[in-house]
């Protein structure tokens, strides 16, 4: 894919997006809502025409070769898009037939997923739980044995256990040689991908292995804890060496502008500063930056995101 752009009236949804997905790779598109992930998926799945740039899927052009692409890819849109009044099995058989195959022929590839919901095969799809719906949708996208899988936010609206199960399944599929392009707004899921593209406002900020993305974080990073988190942020913003400070779980992630100073020394100084400001219980620990830290830094607006 090269220099892909898509514009909706006044909004630029995609701006100069360029990346490649390798064979048997689990490639993640990571970014908040509105980053352009769905638009990108729709262009790649031949549902939208790019305004400029070009993209090839399995070596086929997304504009010219749409029918050839459609026969060979599996696509799971971000929203549950099966028939709620049809049963689990009826949905599956229908999508198999549409692709000129059958549930029996596709059973082997969907078995790891489908077995988890097979005991509900006579239940109407609309009556399934969120996780089961996504497993069914994944089965439907896989039943014709595609050569490439597009999954747009497969774990949105799914409980934590089902999310882990779904990612385990994606890992298995990838291991069987299927390249997968998956989008997710959850940073913690990025680690399950081989490579990720961080997206923000239609642009790709970085493409790398998840661990390498974290390593791109340019400054020393610390986890800071104190009882009064709000006051803590205020105090950190008043500190002269603060590069960024934003909430992260139940702690704050703080980065320092002094790159040449040893992290332990910075931690000691910061702890002393916070204690002088009345945070007797303040804990400052040097940490390795993760994808989310890198993402916040790349977004370039960490200060505003605080609080």
């Amino acid at each position, binding site marked *: 894919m090269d220099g892909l752009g898509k514009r909706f009236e006044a909004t630029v949804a995609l701006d100069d997006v360029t990346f490649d997905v390798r064979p048997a790779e689990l490639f993640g598109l990571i970014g908040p809502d509105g980053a352009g992930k769905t638009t990108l998926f*729709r262009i790649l*799945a*031949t*549902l*939208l*025409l790019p305004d400029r740039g070009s993209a090839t899927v399995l070596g086929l052009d997304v504009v010219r070769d*749409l*029918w050839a692409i*459609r*026969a060979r*890819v599996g*696509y799971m*849109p971000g*929203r*549950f*898009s*099966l*028939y*709620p*009044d*049809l049963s689990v099995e*009826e949905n599956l*058989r*229908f*999508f198999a*037939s*549409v*692709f*000129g195959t059958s549930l029996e022929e596709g059973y082997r590839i969907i078995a790891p997923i489908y077995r988890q919901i097979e005991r509900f095969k006579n239940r109407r799809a609309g009556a399934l739980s969120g996780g089961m719906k996504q497993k069914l949708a994944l089965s*439907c996208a896989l039943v014709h044995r595609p050569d490439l899988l597009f999954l747009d936010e497969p774990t949105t609206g799914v409980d934590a256990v089902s999310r882990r199960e779904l990612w385990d399944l994606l890992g298995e599929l990838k291991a069987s040689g299927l390249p997968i392009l998956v989008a997710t707004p959850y940073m913690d899921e990025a680690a399950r991908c081989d490579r990720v593209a961080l997206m923000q406002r239609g642009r790709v900020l970085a493409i790398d292995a998840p661990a390498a993305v974290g390593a791109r974080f340019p400054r020393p990073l610390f986890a800071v804890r104190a009882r009064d988190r709000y006051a803590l942020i205020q105090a950190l913003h008043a500190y002269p060496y603060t590069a960024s400070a934003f909430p992260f779980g139940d702690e704050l992630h703080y980065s320092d502008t002094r790159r040449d100073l040893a992290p332990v020394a910075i931690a000691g100084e910061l702890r002393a500063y916070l204690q002088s400001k009345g945070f007797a219980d303040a804990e400052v620990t040097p940490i390795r930056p993760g994808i989310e830290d890198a993402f916040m830094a790349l977004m370039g607006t960490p200060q505003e995101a605080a609080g």
Partner: protein
Amino acid sequence: MNTTALAAFMTKEVRHILRDRQTLTILLLLPLAMVVLFGYALRSDVNEVRLALVDPAPDYATAALRGRFAGNARFRIVATPETMAKLEPLFRRGDVDVAIVFEPGFAARLAEGTPARLLLVGDASDPNTGSTMQAYATAVIAGYQAELGSAGAGVQIVSRTRMRYNPTLESVNLFVPGLIALVLTLVSALMTAISLSREKERGTLEVLLVSPLRPWQIILGKVLPYLLLAFANVVTALLAAWVVFRVPFRGSLALLLVASMLYSMVSLALGVLVAAVTTSQRAAMIGALVGTMLPNELLSGMIFPISSMPDWLRPVTAVIPARWFIVIARGIMLKGVGLEYLWQAHLVLVLMLAVFLALAIRSFKPRLA
């Protein structure tokens, strides 16, 4: 792509239809309910026409005609003024609906074979009722004329043709063809538009698009089950009309069923067109109602005769599919005529089908808008 995919699509569509029990029940009972409703409540027949007779020089012929009106259940003679001048206030007060004025020497003229004239005056402040009452009166006079057997009696008969096909002037006979058109429009255009836009709204169309299914296959799989439903509806409506109202059926049932399916396909194509240009079920429903139901009901001659429409509106009715279907259905059911008279109307429907189908397939994009 093969027939298995199409069959699977139709099976899925039939399941949608069968599982939506409420809608299905309504759709199946609708023709029945409509025939009964129109047949009993919405008829334009007028009962108890108040009649005034002006007979300045009574003779045996005028007496015989007066007797016929007196004996007719539809008429009640409320006044017999001596002169026409005395008629005027009766109309103004609204005491009289129709008046008949005999010319003097009526019987003598009849005997001579010269035209015997009478004047029929109707209160046409409600034009439909007015013409209906006038038609009733003409029917009574025609009956007398027939009895006399004198073809040259010269009593002008206003709507001979209509009476010939509907001698008792039962309006239910005229309504049934229109009703069939209405029910077919509803099932074909409205239901298809809703069903197709539901796929859009639910996002299932997005998944269908990213499949080897071509737009025409999606359309075909979508509309064929509704064609079956439409067929069932035509049969129900005809049965109800015959069982409840003994509406005559003079022509070929096969031809009527063929024409019904033709009309249904035109409506299905329109339904697809409506769904293609709308983005939600609600918009599709309103679009189908305003775009197909309303014109088919109002501009087809089903309720309002085309001949009583203004000059500029009449040509517009040519593009209303129901207009042509009603011509066919009335021709077959009431007149008993066949293709030899109805081929033009059939041809128009075939052309409409070709145009609307082409438009529908064109408007159904293989990508998201």
